[in-house]
């Protein structure tokens, strides 16, 4: 059996990068402060020392060129892993992602493709300023040709990042800042992967389905505990892991059993990922639905300042309340 270590999410991600770089010389890292500094969150710590500054590149401060040059590298056959320092600064390169990374396979009818990962920290909960707390997954989820992945803890982070690096398609990979140092998990030292495009049922139940991902997964699990303890409700909790392509099958199967669902995310509600989850449930499990799918999300406000953040991001109490309303419907 492979040895196990306990790692937080930062170290788990670092391990995935390290091992993939050891495994495949075409994998390289590119971004602002990823080299000498090891990334502002230290996810790429020590990698430049190990692999050199040609393979772990401290780029100039320009997101569009980070993605744009990575597209070029990928067209040549390299497998760049880009870091955008915060997801709030990725709209600077959104055109390179949408116009190019996501489309080269189609545009060249398979002659070229962009095997690349675009990592970025996202989400709130760390007392940070504007553009450092937002959840923009929806924007990537709607782009055909992209995959949109959000792990929920150290182990899924390591396994999914490994899969993302090996995936022949461009993967946008969101890392919750709130989770970076939140908890350690046991992680096998040998590389581990997880299939992209597949959700996980992380808790089984028959009364209600809770759909969550990223930092909200833990909150949803705690809400399930409360519902179990206080209401004797058996909640099934689904960790999406991949936002797009969405694993509708797992969600629909669960709701087919429970008849009720609540979807949770940090992104603003309107036109957000919860809408697709809700619509997909309606399409796939309409006759089983006993209540409308509820969305527990941030409000439709661009930013609130961290002094007011707790009232904006879903917490256990709000999920429990929504679950109770759904159960009582």
């Amino acid at each position, binding site marked *: 059996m492979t040895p196990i270590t306990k790692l937080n999410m930062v170290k788990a991600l670092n391990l995935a990068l390290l091992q993939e770089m050891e495994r495949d010389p075409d994998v*390289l890292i590119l971004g602002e402060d990823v080299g000498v500094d090891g990334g502002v969150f230290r996810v790429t710590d020590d990698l430049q020392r190990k692999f050199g500054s*040609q*393979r772990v590149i401290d*780029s*100039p401060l*320009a997101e*569009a*060129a980070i*993605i*744009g*040059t*990575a*597209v*070029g*590298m*990928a*067209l*040549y*056959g*390299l497998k*760049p892993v880009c870091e955008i320092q915060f997801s709030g600064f990725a709209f600077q390169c959104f*055109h*390179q992602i949408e*116009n*190019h990374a996501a489309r080269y*396979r*189609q*545009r*060249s*009818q*398979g*002659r*070229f*493709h962009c095997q690349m990962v675009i990592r970025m920290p996202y989400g709130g909960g760390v007392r940070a300023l504007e553009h450092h707390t937002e959840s923009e997954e929806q924007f990537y989820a709607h782009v*055909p*040709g992209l*995959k949109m992945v959000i792990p929920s803890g150290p182990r899924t982070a390591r396994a999914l990042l490994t899969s993302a690096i090996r*995936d*022949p*398609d461009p993967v946008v990979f969101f890392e919750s800042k709130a989770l970076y140092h939140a908890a350690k998990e046991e992680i096998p030292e040998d590389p581990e992967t997880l299939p992209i*495009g597949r959700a996980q049922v992380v808790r089984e139940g028959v009364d209600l389905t809770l759909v969550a991902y990223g930092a909200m997964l833990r909150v949803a699990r705690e809400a399930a505990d409360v519902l179990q303890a206080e209401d004797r409700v058996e909640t099934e909790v689904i960790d999406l892991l991949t936002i797009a*392509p*969405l694993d*509708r*099958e797992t969600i629909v199967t669960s709701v087919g059993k429970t008849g009720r669902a609540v979807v949770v995310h940090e992104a603003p509600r309107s036109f957000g990922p919860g809408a697709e989850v809700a619509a997909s449930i309606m399409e796939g499990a309409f006759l089983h639905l006993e209540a409308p799918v509820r969305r527990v999300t941030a409000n439709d406000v661009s930013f609130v300042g961290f002094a007011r953040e707790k009232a904006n991001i879903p917490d256990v109490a709000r999920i429990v309340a929504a679950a109770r309303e759904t159960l009582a419907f």
Partner: protein
Amino acid sequence: MPRTILEPRFHVEYLSILDSDGNLDAALEPKLSPGELRSLHRAMVLARRFDERMVRLQRQGRIGTFAPIKGQEASQLGSVITLRATDWMVPSFRETAAMIWRGWPIEKILLFFAGYVEGGRPAPDQRDLPITIPVGTQLPHAVGLAYAAQYRGDDAVVMAYFGDGATSEGDFHEALNFAGVWHVPVVFVCQNNQWAISVPLKKQTHSKTIAQKALAYGLPGIQVDGNDVLAVYTAAREAVERARAGEGPTLIECVTYRLGVHTTADDPTKYRTQEEVTAWEQKDPLTRFRAYLEKKDLLEDGLEQRVDEEIAEAVRRFEATPPPDPLLVFDHVYAEMPPHLRAQREELARWLREGGAPAPEPPEAPQGATPMRGQRLTRR
């Protein structure tokens, strides 16, 4: 300590070898063999005649909107011929001449402009990117390719094309800045054709030249007469050699002119005078090169005719293209088709089987396209 002028004094060179009056600077004349000169000339003629043919095909509704290259043949061919097959060519959307030189079949170019995704597929070993439509966005790709070549230890050079308008985009700036810092083998070829649709260069930037923009990145920049194929060739060859020798990127500004419409949907009489066009017609790169070859007795008989026949053949092949299969578009979104796309594909397939979907659209004239007053045919 006081007000000082920082060294070095910056400068930008201008290169012209064969001017529009046919004067040749023999000292600068590049050493091209008769065979090279002939095939260069053949490519220029082919590019010109094909361009004109495309305009007619567009008017007949057999292809959609496209961007003619008339007047820019020397800028494209003078530069692209300095590349090896193992080098990379990164076009924008107005590089038909360069694409043909690089081996894109004419019928594939037609397919592209007829709205077939197949038209964007390079040959398996072809080191060309497909046409890029968003202005300037291809430049970082070129830098990334050059980085990758350097990283792999290949001696490939990357040549990237763009217009004067493209220099205003952030992507131009970021690409040149990265190229400078990374010192990668890339040659940036700006076809300064004086116009970005209706916007003249002086409204595009307050700098006197495009070449001087290289100074912002610590790169060599050179301005050449873009209608002088010998000057373009000389500047490009030097830049390619430098790149290949590990001496980093270069910005080349080819001063040229778009003699025709911006695209076949454009009406240049709205924004520029006939006098201006006529003045530039006097500087036609083909006329000038033809005269040069004539003096060297290198003109081939019947070239136009042979070229036209080649084009006609390709058009025939293009027209024999079977109707497009609508299901193809699902194949290359991802490496493996995810379930939701499989479902959408099956739905469309069923729909097509049951006759629900409309037949693929036959070529027809687009609604509301502006007539192309600005585009005239070669007189010769």
